[in-house]
């Protein structure tokens, strides 16, 4: 048979039973639509996180306690034998090319002013953090230069507003875990970044925070350096310096900005693929729909199959006709699903412009290819059933 004739025959059969065709391709359409929509959401989230991260620039790295070789999450495997301390952080300042060091410790604490109080994240750090995290100030100044300890605090904009509704926070005193600290600065509104609310936070000198939380160990040290091209060199220098301080053991993890991005990218990509896999479950359901409808169709068209055999069709011709029908149904379903998915994505974006839904062409193509493949596979059993029919019995059937 000529390929075009096979396609025409399949198309004719699909058109001949429109309602049935629509019902059978609905499952495939919903499957493709959900894959397109869910992966668009996943890709949108990935891009959003990337953009958030990139605002810090590429010349910042993070040193965390604990050595991790595999999944990049410090402290999960192994664990530190040496703590990361303020002394470690001071050592790193002396490395050539390093422009800033922010030893950090953080924890949840209640920040109070008179009768008003609020439980927020308190972040112990140094002045260098301002540059690294691009913190803008609305009033006052950030933590003082060179001071690791001091009875001062810088409040995030919302925290300041909650504690001092009349706007007289600057110069006032707050209590943090029993410590009395003077407000020397109020940050400009910033919003959230990866779940961290920059507006509902209190910055205090790192040694003060350690005392507040009764700790002698840092959570991390952030290091900024002159240029992103120096990353490798700086990482080597930090590693050498800390190994020397930690009795020859590399019990810490250095994560550059690009490695962090890569890691987050991997996680989000895995999430997107997972979502796509979930969506493809509905493709499988759609395939069962195609199989069922075609199975019934073979039963109903038994005489037609017998006729085709009488007119000289080979068993292979009959199988190909039904496979082509399955492929036609699946392709139509895939196209409808693609249109539906992109349409819903466009509607969602129009309704919530903040959501950047980004359909990934490779996922779209994969969904379409999978739908066609799934349709073909779904057509195999009905096609074999049709091909194996005895022509005489088929012609005689009611």
């Amino acid at each position, binding site marked *: *048979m*000529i390929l*075009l*004739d096979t396609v025409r*025959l399949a198309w*004719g*059969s699909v*058109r*001949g039973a429109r309602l049935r065709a629509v019902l059978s391709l609905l499952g495939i359409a919903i499957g493709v639509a959900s894959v397109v929509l869910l992966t668009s959401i996943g890709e949108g989230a990935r891009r959003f996180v990337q953009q958030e991260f990139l605002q810090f620039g590429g010349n910042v790295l993070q040193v965390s306690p604990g050595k991790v070789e595999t999944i990049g999450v410090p402290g999960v495997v192994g664990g530190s034998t040496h703590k990361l301390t303020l002394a470690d952080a001071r050592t790193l300042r002396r490395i050539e090319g390093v422009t800033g060091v922010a030893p950090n410790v953080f924890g949840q604490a209640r920040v109070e002013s008179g009768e008003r109080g609020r439980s927020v994240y308190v972040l112990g750090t140094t002045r260098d953090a301002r540059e690294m995290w691009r913190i803008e100030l609305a009033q006052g100044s950030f933590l003082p230069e060179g001071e690791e300890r001091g009875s001062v605090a810088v409040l995030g904009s919302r925290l300041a507003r909650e504690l001092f509704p009349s706007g007289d926070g600057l110069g006032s005193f707050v209590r943090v875990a029993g410590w009395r600290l003077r407000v020397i600065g109020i940050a400009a509104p910033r919003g959230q970044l990866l779940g961290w609310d920059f507006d509902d936070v209190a910055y205090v000198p790192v040694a003060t925070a350690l005392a507040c939380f009764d700790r002698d160990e840092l959570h991390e040290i952030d290091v900024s350096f002159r240029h992103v091209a120096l990353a490798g060199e700086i990482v080597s220098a930090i590693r050498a310096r800390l190994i020397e301080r930690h009795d020859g053991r590399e019990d810490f993890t250095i994560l550059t900005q690009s490695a962090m991005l890569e890691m987050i990218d991997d996680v989000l990509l895995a999430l997107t693929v997972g979502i796509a896999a979930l969506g493809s479950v509905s493709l499988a359901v759609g395939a069962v729909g195609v199989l069922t409808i075609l199975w019934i169709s073979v039963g109903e068209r038994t*005489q*037609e199959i*017998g*006729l*085709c*055999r*009488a*007119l*000289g*069709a*080979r*068993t*292979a*011709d009959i199988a190909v006709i039904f496979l082509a029908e399955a492929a036609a149904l699946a392709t139509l379903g895939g196209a409808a699903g693609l249109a539906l998915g992109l349409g819903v994505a466009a509607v969602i974006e129009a309704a919530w412009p903040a959501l950047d839904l980004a359909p990934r062409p490779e996922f779209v193509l994969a969904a379409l290819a999978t739908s066609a493949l799934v349709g073909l596979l779904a057509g195999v059993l009905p096609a074999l059933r049709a091909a194996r029919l005895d*022509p*005489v019995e088929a*012609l005689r059937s009611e």
Partner: protein
Amino acid sequence: MIELVGIRRSYALGGETIHALDGIDERIESGEHVAVMGPSGSGKSTLLNVIGCLDRPTAGSYRLDGREVAGLSDAELARIRRREIGHVFQAFHLVPRMSALENVELGMLFDSIPPRQRRERALAALASVGMGPRAGHRPGELSGGERQRAAIARAVVTRPRVLLADEPTGNLDQTSGRAVLELLDGLHAAGFTVVIVTHDPGVARRAQRVLLMRNGRIVRRMPASELRTLDEALAGAAP
């Protein structure tokens, strides 16, 4: 030329073996017009199916124009059905969603005949049975006689040597039936070998020869002109 020697067709039914054809020896010459008659279950349709390569004999030899076909593969039998045999059925067997023209073209699809040539031949075949003006109509829009004429056009469009008709007038009124029989007569006159299965002596009498069947065997061969009724003819047959 059709040569059948010792043809048997048996099948199992409920643990019992049924001999639908029980040793058929027959020779039908090219261009002959033969009617097959017999009571229900005598094996007429099975014989037609074997001749039409729709069914395979359990035993025996079937030679079509000197070529043994009993042991051919599915693809080879399909090729013979496409090119050398035309089928006309009592129930017409037209595909309802296709027009008369598309129905006539259907068999040629399986022979990979190019679309233009296919269309020309189908239109010519429909015109030859007086169905040219109805080419674009679907079976549901045609009368019984018109459907059977379209089915005959489909059977002859590939110019087969043999035309097999199983009760071609069984579903038609007298007028339509007569028109269909006249068509078959015309095709015989044009050189087709026509084998027709019928219960109707009036139909059988239009043939040259009548084969009478009973219990899977040909029990009598007679000139069609001598046929009066089936019962009478069978009464004179071998037991």
